[in-house]
């Protein structure tokens, strides 16, 4: 078994406020294998971005990692001192943010920002440094890179800027790239290009990708596996093809149903009633139970854990024996009964 590039175990992130300790993510565990693209999907506020920020060690105080472990290629990184963590950032973990315009310092030329990053992590200097930067620009598809080297960020279009951002994130050849909503701020026509570029770059640099997005379409295009997050927990995780075509968790089913299909009957758009709970009011038991169309007795009381089911893992009492209430079973249940 190849060792995973990233291994997250029982991660818990809290934000203490005056009134309460808000738990942003609770007991989150997953692995990413080298070269793999793991998608992380969920509504706003589900905890996807917090997961990414926690992995790269950029949670702002008073927020903190309150439990669990993070392993990068087998070595534990969540408790590293700041200087050591800084050396990992950029060099071994890269991160891409949502808005390419605000991600780049408006007062510095992009060439300078590139060479600065490369110089921080390598010994290249002078002409070799500049050549490497230009090569990176060319690799991400910027035309005439020697000229664009001296341009400022605002002189690029949105899609071009995101390419520059990708170049910056990959400048030091990291093993893992965390992409937090990389296409959300872009035009639809440009999104596909950027996704393609990301996949190509990842293959060429042999990097794994944690692709965080709320857009299932992007996941379907780009990811190998996908983790579905709800209220700070992973409710389902498995290969993309299986999760998309045969979603297990009722929430995942709702998500898939909300994607309009070009083929098939023109039904109404499926909506999941209600909205995701605020961090101050997470329901007891399974956090999805107030909105779940399949809710039954154990759901409000006991919290389900991720357990294997078919080719995926799912956290739902529909699939695993519940601690009590064995007799209550909903009428329709696809697949074998637990």
């Amino acid at each position: 078994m190849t060792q995973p590039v990233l291994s997250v175990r029982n991660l818990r992130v809290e934000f203490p406020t005056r009134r309460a300790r808000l738990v942003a993510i609770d007991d989150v565990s997953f692995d990413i294998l080298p070269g793999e693209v793991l998608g992380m999907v969920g509504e706003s506020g589900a905890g996807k971005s917090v997961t990414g920020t926690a992995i790269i060690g950029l949670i702002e105080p008073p927020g903190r990692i309150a439990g669990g472990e993070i392993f990068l290629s087998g070595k534990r990184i969540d408790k590293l001192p700041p200087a050591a963590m800084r050396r990992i950032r950029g060099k071994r973990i890269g991160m891409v943010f949502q808005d390419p315009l605000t991600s780049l310092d408006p007062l510095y030329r992009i060439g300078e920002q590139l060479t600065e990053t490369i110089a921080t992590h390598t010994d290249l200097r002078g002409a070799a440094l500049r050549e490497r930067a230009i090569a990176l620009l060319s690799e991400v598809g910027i035309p005439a890179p020697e000229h664009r080297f001296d341009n400022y960020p605002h002189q690029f279009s949105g899609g071009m800027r995101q390419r520059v951002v990708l170049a910056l994130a990959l400048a030091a050849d990291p093993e893992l790239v965390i992409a937090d909503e990389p296409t959300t701020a872009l035009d639809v026509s440009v999104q596909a290009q950027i996704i393609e570029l990301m996949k190509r770059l990842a293959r060429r640099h042999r990097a794994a990708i944690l692709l965080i997005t709320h857009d299932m379409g992007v996941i379907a295009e780009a990811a190998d596996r996908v983790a579905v997050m709800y209220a700070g927990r992973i409710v389902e995780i498995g290969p993309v093809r299986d999760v998309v075509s045969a979603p297990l968790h009722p929430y995942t089913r709702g998500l898939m149903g909300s994607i309009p299909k070009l083929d098939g009957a023109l039904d109404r758009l499926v909506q999941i009633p209600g909205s995701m709970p605020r961090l101050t009011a997470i329901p007891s038991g399974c956090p999805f139970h107030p909105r779940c169309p399949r809710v039954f007795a154990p759901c409000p009381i006991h919290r389900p854990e991720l357990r294997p089911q078919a080719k995926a893992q799912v956290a739902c009492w529909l699939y695993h024996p519940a601690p009590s209430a064995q007799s209550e079973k909903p009428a329709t249940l696809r697949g074998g009964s637990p």
Partner: protein
Amino acid sequence: MVEQLQVPPLRNEGRLAAALDSDLLHAFLRSRIAVAATLITVTLVLAAVFAPWIAPHDPFDLRQLNLLDSHLPPAWLADGDPRYLLGTDDQGRDVLSTILYGSRISLGVGILAVGLAAALGIVLGLIAGYAGGFLDALIMRIADVQLTFPAILIALLIDGTGRALFGEHRNETLEFWVLVLSIGLSFWVQYARTVRGSTMVEKSKDYVLAARLIGIHPAKILFRHVLPNVIGPVLVIATINLALAIITEATLSFLGVGLPPTQPSLGTLIRIGNNFLFAGEWWIAIFPGITLALLVVAINLLGDWLRDALNPRLQ
């Protein structure tokens, strides 16, 4: 059978209960600085307001003055007299009493000037934001031009013009109001800008459009709906402005173009005392100076704290 579970409905909390539990009040009580600043401000204000009743002497009653008692140092020093706690000036006036009366005047001018500036600024801001077009451009132009000049200069100019205009007809009341006017006129711009911004935001909202369709008079719309939304930032500006107004008045009085010596504010007192600094009679200038400093620092602290507390971005 599937149980239908519902989210329990929110209790309708009273607004007072919500206010008492609010983050603002809690942060206020937890900040020792804010509490201390408010206490100091309130104490000084009350002392000033009740000066005629709590001052041990009336420093402006010529019959009470005794020239033999002049130039006395504070009570705890060698030649001090316990009747005059902080000493006396060259005319035998009790320094403590002059400070109390002086604070009254300083505060009075400050509050009146801020009131004038706020009223003028709010009205002009409402008009500029609501009417838009030429009126807006005109008002904002004037504001911009005025902003290039420091307030003190504008105050000096208006004061000087007032003096020249009224020439020999000067009297104390006139000087007082010219002073209030000059300070107030130099500070209206900030209010106008803030209010204009909020007005423009509210103007495009549906309920305003609806009200206009029904034919409600724009003044009523402005005062009933736009104004309450703007009170918060205006309060912050007013608090910080009050400190600035008091400083400006003190400065003008110190320079000799403010209030006449018969109605001395803290600034006038410092000016009088300045002449005796080199003679070693420091108490005549220093005590009013400390009072002024304390008052202004306390108000500034309060305004600072208020601004930080109401700024959601700094949480």
